[in-house]
């Protein structure tokens, strides 16, 4: 008897059935994820321009507080770890790790996000427990509960500490901030969408969506949590808080000077986030000078993979004042 048609048909049927069954209970978020800085590269890589609040829906209070910020402020003990908070990991330049904690019955009790980005891990409780009293302890990782919506894990984070939203420009987040997180993994990509709300400093929800890539080596997540250290000896024990007084921040007009961005856009007014704002922009925006000829102002070719396998040689990078950067962002003696 020729059995090959039978084997073929059974195999084919099994393949079709297997491919067609919904992927129930198959999403495992466990692993290390590497940042791909293809969005908001300046904030996440070399560091944001001072006075750049584009893309932010700030209240007047949020804007005023951000403008008090100086680069010396995070050098004070009390504020060194403010950038390492639950919402800020979307702006961090390195990866993180996700793991599960199991209940006694073998079910997942919590999903945990940890890594360089945090002072405390974000522990997403999956057992249906309620959020605690508003007066309960606030942590940098907050208190989070989650549920599955199909293959997306949706978490709600409350009880956060005061923090900064972006890196290095002082955009504030109050301890009444809440964050809704949606995590969707498909193959080796993890999409995280965060919707951040703050009754004090945000005039509407701040939405960020990012793509992370599973990294089996996990090297990027092997970073310690934030530790404080004295960075400016002259400040120690003085009680001084570095700041600019209202109206005296010299970088308030940086984006106007450098990129011809209107002040209302640079200062984070919500209307500037929507397409209709271009009607206003069209009559006032002038294209800045070519990047290669302009300084200061950071504009750059792609340097992430230079000098590594797969990297294209000879790309250059105008770093906006320090010269032209070569492979991997380092100047060499032969480069101008």
């Amino acid at each position: 008897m020729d059995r090959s048609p039978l084997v073929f048909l059974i195999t084919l049927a099994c393949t079709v059935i297997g491919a067609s069954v919904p992927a129930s209970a198959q999403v495992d978020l466990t692993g290390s994820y590497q940042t791909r800085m293809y969005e908001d590269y300046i904030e996440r890589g070399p560091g944001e321009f001072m006075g750049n609040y584009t893309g932010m829906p700030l209240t007047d209070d949020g804007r005023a507080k951000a403008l008090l910020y100086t680069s010396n402020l995070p050098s004070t003990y009390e504020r060194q770890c403010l950038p390492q908070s639950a919402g800020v990991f979307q702006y961090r330049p390195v990866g993180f790790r996700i793991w599960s904690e199991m209940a006694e019955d073998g079910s997942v009790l919590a999903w945990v996000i940890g890594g360089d980005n945090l002072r405390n891990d974000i522990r997403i409780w999956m057992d249906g427990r309620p959020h605690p009293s508003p007066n309960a302890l606030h942590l940098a990782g907050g208190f989070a509960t989650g549920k599955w919506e199909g293959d997306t894990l949706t978490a709600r984070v409350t009880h956060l500490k005061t923090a900064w939203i972006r890196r290095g420009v002082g955009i504030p987040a109050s301890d009444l901030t809440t964050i809704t997180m949606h995590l969707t993994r498909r193959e080796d990509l993890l999409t995280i969408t965060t919707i951040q709300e703050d009754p004090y400093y945000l005039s509407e929800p701040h939405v960020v969506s990012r793509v992370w890539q599973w990294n089996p080596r996990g090297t990027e997540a092997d970073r310690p949590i934030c530790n404080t250290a004295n960075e400016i000896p002259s400040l120690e024990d003085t009680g001084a808080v570095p700041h600019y007084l209202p109206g005296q921040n010299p970088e308030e007009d940086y984006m106007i000077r450098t990129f011809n961005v209107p002040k209302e856009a640079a200062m984070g007014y919500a209307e500037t986030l929507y397409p209709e704002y271009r009607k206003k922009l069209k009559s006032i925006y002038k294209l800045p000078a070519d990047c290669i000829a302009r300084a200061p102002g950071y504009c750059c070719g792609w340097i992430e993979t230079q000098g590594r396998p797969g990297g294209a040689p000879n790309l250059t990078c105008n770093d906006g004042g320090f010269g032209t950067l070569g492979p991997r962002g380092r100047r060499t003696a032969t480069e101008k």
Partner: protein
Amino acid sequence: MRRTSLALIFLVLATSTLTAQGRGGQAGPQTARTAAPIDMTGYWVAIISEDWRWRMITPSRGDFPSIPINLAAQKLAEAWDAARDEAAGEQCKAYGAPGLMRGPTRLHITWLDDSTLKLETDYGMQTRLFEFGAASRGSAKPSWQGTSVAQWVMAGGGRGGRGAAGSARYGSMKSITTNLRPGYLRKNGVPYSEKTSFTEYWDLLTETNGDQYLVDTNVVNDPVYLQLPWMTAIHFKKEKDGSKWNPEPCDARF
């Protein structure tokens, strides 16, 4: 006879499984429209909360961080000339699908027929068709929006905890767009080639207050001008109607 019987068994198994994948096991054939696990139709607005300086306005020549271009692309981008594009009738080069989706646009998504989802933008007045199934109405000639083949990806509940899928339907849309006319990934002339493939995963997120977001996780693969795949996620918020819809033709300069 035996082979015929086996073939019939296979067909019955395959058909019943595919049907059950749609609306909770309804009988009868499914179309892409009736099988949809999410409703993407309606008006959506891009919230430009990321990369504002590169998306809302045209950046200066040579300002192209964050796109993993190679040297050939850098040379082309540094030679970008909007006037030249206009003169050549190529003012829509930044409105091809891979560049358009990061633009400051509204989307209007509707069903063209039972197997074709239509996506229109007011920014550049472009139309892209997502075709489910094998049949394709895309022309052989490359175009700004290319040929998009789509499929529903059904989802179950993930691991752990309460609130798993239950009787609700979840899923996403995956689309792959090829047959693209060469264009720009960024308005200031960062190129992509005709060999580009554009893969997108569309997720619908619904908040407790009823707000809905459409998140387009996408990967641009271009063996000619990119060192690595360029991956981003773009979010759109649902609008109640088309009252803010504002069609504008392609503009090579702004």
